[in-house]
């Protein structure tokens, strides 16, 4: 081993390991096995799959953050690399932190220009070991991944039986595969033990820090939320990263929703495009069957016309928007929070859409199931604004909970009996309760009462077509009243005062929350106390306006170029242009805590810095 002129990174349960693999080689399940093993040792873990828009052959990375303190956002910087992909070998080599560890396939020596003297190289002849031990080419490929997991178990001093237990769980139904997988783990473990004793300064030690947490991806929790929320119909069109929402809905519906004859108490149709998917969801809800669709940015654009119809004709809809990098096709497999404005004001004319913004899988579950109640109550579209990071990565999360006494809120729906007992003339859009919401009827309710004509054209209280200006205006103003009602129906922001007197604050939402909290904790340790407001819904609750009023400098932390949430705040509260200061991340990776912290430090020090935590437009400022 060459001499290393840098102290090695030493840490227990607090480091970042990055796996560099080739897409389609089965690496994801091996990497997940490693990550889940850490979790099963009671240590919180945060895996991020960084994958290409490709089926086979392109580079893919899997980053696992081992985090005893439970910081589940992205930290930034890499302490250990497992470099299995020749295409990115140099890049992976260069980006490793000084003092870090570089595990590579030493079947072939590293090229001559790999000359860092500040990192520790761990060469394991993975390919040769596979050739020696396996004859089948597919096995040679798959077991290569398992062998390096075995090596890591030794290097990090992990409990080997946790890994063998995982293999047994994973292949419970394919018992034949258990022994060879454990064999591969042992191969790696023993090789590392023989060649790299006392090399690695990183350790995973058993703790009891995960409690009753679970590991689940946001999209699975969302699909499950739709089952629990009573969704019976999904019309959808496949698009990364939202596809697995409907796949999860289908999986859980098949598990929980069969009647005595084995028939489905749900229906799923794969539509011809997103326009149709949204049209289907509208039709189902119009008939009183809870229906939803799931999409991402490009689909949201296509659904805009229909969202306007649902807004104006007042049809409940649940739309799951799992955001990805835009504009246009953008980076389809990379994360962003860049649909904020296009979702909030989706469609032409004067429209405003209700947004629910989860930050972890438990909230994906809760907000999706709640979204059906909110939509039915308000008779309007509700968009659950998730993102790729939340949707497609496994997250350590609170367990999912359901109150068996909870009843669905179907909103204001008249039965045949209600219609018969009604004294005054019923008007579908008549605001009899003063909350801007009328009473609706499902088709087929009553032989002679309660029928009406649903339309996207201007209509009066009785749903009749009108071009009467004053009637049109009154209707549009009633919709504003309903918007006010929505502020009490949607989830309230999560506001935390670290110091009641502090004039510095931060506002964030969704997946920016975890990294933001971590960055602010770090600043607090250094004496800077920053109050926080996590936005959970739109329309904004008045508490958010109050929070802005209370502070002089407010960092709005989000993952898009144009500071969309900041724009929305300024627009809705008509204030804050001076004091709302952006911290932005647009590189398609989850926003990193270390970068947020550095950025805030520099901004508070009065430096004139770009709001971007990544490369700025002039490429002058590059931070790791």
């Amino acid at each position, binding site marked *: 081993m060459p001499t290393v002129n840098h102290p090695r990174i030493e840490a227990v349960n607090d480091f970042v390991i990055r796996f560099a693999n080739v897409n389609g080689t089965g690496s994801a399940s091996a990497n997940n096995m490693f990550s889940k093993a850490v979790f099963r040792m009671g240590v919180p873990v945060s895996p991020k799959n960084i994958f290409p828009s490709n089926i086979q052959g392109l580079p893919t990375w899997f980053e696992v953050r081992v985090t005893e303190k439970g910081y589940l956002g992205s930290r930034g910087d890499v302490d250990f690399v497992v470099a299995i992909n020749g295409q990115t070998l140099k890049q992976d080599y260069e980006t490793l932190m000084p003092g870090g560890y570089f595990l590579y396939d030493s079947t072939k020596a590293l090229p001559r220009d790999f000359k860092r003297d500040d990192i520790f190289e761990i060469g394991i002849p993975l390919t040769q070991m596979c050739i020696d031990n396996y004859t089948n080419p597919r096995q040679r490929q798959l077991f290569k991944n398992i062998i390096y997991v075995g090596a890591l178990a030794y290097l990090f001093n992990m409990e080997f039986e946790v890994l063998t237990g995982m293999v047994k769980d994973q292949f419970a139904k394919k018992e034949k595969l258990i022994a060879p997988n454990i064999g591969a783990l042992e191969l790696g473990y023993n090789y590392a033990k023989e060649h790299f004793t006392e090399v690695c300064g990183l350790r995973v030690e058993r703790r009891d820090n995960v409690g009753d947490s679970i590991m689940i991806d946001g999209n699975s929790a969302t699909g499950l939320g739709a089952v629990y929320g009573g969704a019976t119909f999904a019309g959808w069109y496949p698009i990364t990263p939202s596809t697995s929402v409907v796949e999860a809905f289908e999986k859980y519906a098949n*598990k929980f929703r069969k009647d005595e004859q084995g028939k489905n108490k749900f229906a799923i*149709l794969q539509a011809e495009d997103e326009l149709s998917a949204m049209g289907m*969801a509208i039709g189902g809800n*119009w008939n009183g*069957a809870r*229906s939803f669709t799931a999409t991402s940015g490009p689909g949201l654009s296509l659904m805009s016309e229909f969202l306007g119809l649902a807004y104006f004709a007042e049809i409940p809809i649940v739309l799951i928007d799992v955001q990805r990098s835009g504009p246009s096709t953008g980076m389809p497999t990379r994360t962003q929070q860049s649909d904020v404005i296009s979702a909030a004001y989706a469609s032409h004319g004067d429209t405003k859409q209700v947004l629910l913004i989860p930050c972890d899988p438990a909230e994906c579950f809760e907000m999706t199931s709640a979204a059906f109640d909110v939509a039915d109550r308000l008779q309007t579209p509700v968009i659950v604004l998730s993102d790729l990071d939340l949707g497609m990565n496994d997250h350590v999360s609170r367990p999912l909970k*359901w109150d068996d006494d909870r009843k669905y809120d179907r909103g204001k729906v008249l039965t045949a009996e209600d219609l018969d007992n009604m004294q005054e003339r019923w008007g579908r859009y008549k605001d009899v309760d003063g909350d801007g919401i009328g009473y609706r009827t499902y088709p087929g309710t009553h032989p*002679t009462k309660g029928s009406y004509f649903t339309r996207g054209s201007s209509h009066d209280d009785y749903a009749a077509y009108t071009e009467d200006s004053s009637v049109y205006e009154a209707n549009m103003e009633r919709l504003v009243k309903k918007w006010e009602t929505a502020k009490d129906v949607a989830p309230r922001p999560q506001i935390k005062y670290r110091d009641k007197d502090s004039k510095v604050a931060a506002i964030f939402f969704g997946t920016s929350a975890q990294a933001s909290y971590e960055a602010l904790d770090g600043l607090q340790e250094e004496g800077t106390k920053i109050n926080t407001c996590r936005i959970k819904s739109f329309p904004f609750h008045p508490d958010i306006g109050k929070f802005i009023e209370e502070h002089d400098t407010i960092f709005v932390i989000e993952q898009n170029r144009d500071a969309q949430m900041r724009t929305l705040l300024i627009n809705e509260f008509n204030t804050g242009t001076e004091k709302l200061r952006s911290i932005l991340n647009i590189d398609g990776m989850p926003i990193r805590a270390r970068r947020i912290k550095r950025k805030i430090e520099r901004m508070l020090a009065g430096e004139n810095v770009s709001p971007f935590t990544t490369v700025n437009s002039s490429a002058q400022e590059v931070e790791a």
Partner: protein
Amino acid sequence: MSYLKSTFRHPESPKNDLGYTQANYEGALSTLCAGCGHDSISNSIINACYELSLEPHKIAKMSGIGCSSKTPAYFLSNSHGFNSVHGRMPSVTTGANMGNRDLTYIGVSGDGDTASIGMGQFMHLVRRNLNMVYIVMNNGVYGLTKGQDSATADVGSSSKKGVPNMYEPMDLCELAISLGSGYVARSFSGDKDQLVPLIKGAIKHNGFALIDVVSPCVTFNNNPQSTKSYEWVRDHKEATGTFDLVPEEQEITVQNPDQINESITLHDGTKINLHRQPDSLDITCRESVLSALEEAKQNKQVLTGLLHLNTDSNSTHDILNTCDTPLNRLTEEDLCPGSDALEALNQSLR
């Protein structure tokens, strides 16, 4: 157009099996141009629903945008209606049908709404075989935007603007037959005797039923150079044969024993008795129907009547294996797996 709709009805108007008169199936006063073919089609829908003794509130009227799509306001005022967005009636109807399989869905669309902006949705609707009646009020022209050619205008046909259309027309019946629709018909708004039974048959058919109705636009496309004018269609119309619709409970009576009769039983037991000449078209065979349509086109004829019938197909709900109870009637007890199931799931995720 007139400005007031008379509410006077003959006190002894005949009643159907449900005790409803035809007035119970009417709608609001039409605001279309006087003489518009679409109003005749609306009346045929009213007749068909009245004669079949359908509960008006168990029918849903669906449409997109355009002159045709306004008509659901002019029939069946006791039915819920949905005037959606341009070209998107198919998807909204699909969702509605998924939500409640027990209603009768009558979709009304136009040639612009279906053959241009809505073509994608139309084709996919057909291939899913959604149980619905899809009526195209086909006038070959955009009326509300004042006279542009539509995608069903024949080559060489010109509207009032006087410029002949140079593009190939879409034949919606041929498309629907190719995509597997089991009930495809073409008719003429001026031929109520033919249209009413076609609508009744379409309602009774389990699966997707298309009726393409040539419906002249008196304002923009009723000139002598148009192949969608009253005069041209009357002169060039050919029928495939006639048929009777015999509800399940009634006995079959053969009206014209000298003609070849074929009796086809629909999903609910209703029978369709076909009367046709010995050498006429076999409408159960889609290859021969497609060539007959092509042949008629060569001969500048409009082939009308029931063009294709195939009762042996599964509708969307059959394919999806959906439960018999309409989805919109399921409650928490049916839908929510509860906390125990969730805790078991949590356990599997640790």
